[in-house]
């Protein structure tokens, strides 16, 4: 959330049209707001007096747990939109499932944020269809973006030990259980958008466990955490 919110906020002031600028800022705001809710709760569960801000601004890359796809640079509007769509199509059912979590806080965050995610999905899906259909150039750009991001999509559905533990306690479902429905939606939308799904099921992994990141995350953290790092102890 934080990582994607940050990337999305990079569009502020330079989006393709004023309306897009405003809409992307809205999405970035939602994501940063959601990140805050999750990080606050993580701090509470950890019980080591770390606030949402400490978790966001004082951890180094190996303590960041995020999908690799979300830390990749924006590159262009095509990649931005394809990334949002691939992610939103996972987020909506995922948050719906979390809304039914046995954990009260997770359930309430899930309920609260799924509305936003629904709106994001509606928007990214429509835009994928519009730009896939649009002109030859827009189709080519969208196809390239899909090709570039596809090897990162599978990470959303990889289960690890923590996922299995959470499922055991009915806190969250297994990510892999979301895959089938996601594929169906993605196939349908890309079909409407005249985009061809890459014929590969290879997937990068390790971001959610903090085992591996791309080189881009370090640069993102360098700017994001600059003030908190350069002036420790100051309040802002």
């Amino acid at each position, binding site marked *: 959330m934080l990582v994607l919110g940050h990337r999305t906020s990079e569009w502020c002031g330079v989006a393709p049209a*004023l309306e897009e600028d405003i809409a992307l800022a809205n999405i970035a705001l939602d994501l940063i707001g959601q990140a805050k809710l999750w990080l606050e709760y993580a701090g509470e569960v950890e019980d080591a007096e770390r606030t949402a801000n400490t978790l966001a601004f004082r951890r180094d890359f190996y303590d960041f747990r995020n999908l690799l796809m979300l830390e990749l640079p924006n590159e262009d509007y095509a990649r931005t939109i394809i990334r949002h769509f691939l992610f939103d199509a996972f987020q909506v059912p995922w948050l719906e499932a979390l809304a039914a979590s046995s954990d009260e806080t997770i359930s309430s965050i899930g309920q609260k944020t799924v509305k936003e995610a629904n709106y994001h999905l509606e928007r990214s899906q429509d835009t994928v269809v519009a730009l896939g259909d649009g002109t030859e150039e827009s189709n080519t750009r969208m196809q390239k973006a899909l090709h570039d991001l596809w090897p990162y999509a599978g990470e959303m559905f990889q289960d690890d030990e923590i996922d299995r533990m959470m499922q055991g306690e009915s806190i969250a479902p297994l990510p892999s259980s979301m895959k089938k429905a996601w594929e169906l939606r993605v196939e349908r939308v890309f079909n409407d958008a005249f985009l061809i799904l890459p014929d590969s099921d290879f997937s990068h992994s390790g971001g959610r466990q903090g085992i591996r990141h791309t080189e881009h995350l370090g640069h*993102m953290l360098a700017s994001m955490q600059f003030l908190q790092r350069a002036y420790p102890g100051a309040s802002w």
Partner: protein
Amino acid sequence: MYAQMVKSTGETVVAKEKLSPKEREFQDRIDRGEKIEPKDWMPEEYRKNLIRQIGQHAHSEIVGQLPEGNWITRAPTLERKANLLAKVQDEAGHGLYLYCAAETLGVSRDELFDMLHKGKMKYSSIFNYPTLTWADMGAIGWLVDGAAIMNQVPLQRTSYGPYARAMVRICKEESFHQRQGFQIMLTMAQGTEDQKRMAQDALNRFWYPSLMMFGPSDKDSVHSAQSMAWKIKMNSNDELRQKFVDEIAPQAAFLGLNIPDDDLVWNEKTGHHDYSEPDWDEFFQVISGNGPCNKERLDARKKAWNDGAWVRDGMLAHARKKAMRKVAE
């Protein structure tokens, strides 16, 4: 101000008896405080001046996104990041309202963008200064949005209906921005030595450029008379600048920051603060393209516009195809 060098035609007001009956009726309506609406008859010069002024104002809003956008990715906390992002988003919204208001006068947003990109239309000089520290986010909210409010509150009563209504919406948000900026300054002025230094430095750098926002001194500003008669300009530049200084001086004292002007003192006789004029040579340089960031700002806007062309074309093409498919069904 956001429209600080609007070249208007007619340095002096034409005497009422020399006006045509239509023009006289128009002026009478304005004098009675009536609003002019898009469908109403209006003198060509009134329309042209308004387009220049609203366009310049709109451009200022969107170019104004850039200096603050520069710090969104470096905002120090999640709350500050969200607030700043929301603020810069508001400015995009202001641009949108104003381009819509200009459209009612028969000029499209694309045409206005084109004039901006070709350097045929200006935006406020203030946005050609760089933002170097986080304290600049405080200084801009406090001083720049503060100066914008000074100018825009009276414009809520401007004679052109769509412009006046856009101003009402915008002013509400601007005063929120100013409070937010002041909050940042306050936090920093009460913070560590480093933070105080940043806050003072930001005030040092933004003080005179903020005074320039009101435009040249009245004695050098020859274009106002007709605009005032038409009520598209409500106060003189110096009047508003004085009001701004009078409001900001005590706030700076409250923050414990020094305004970089040794001659700034309260004058018992006038009931106002005396203050030093900004360097007008610098102002005219910045206005004519030689400010610290003019080229970068314009290049950033042009790049965003050019990079986004395929997106806008794609959306348009899709909308057309969709409509055709509907017809075919």
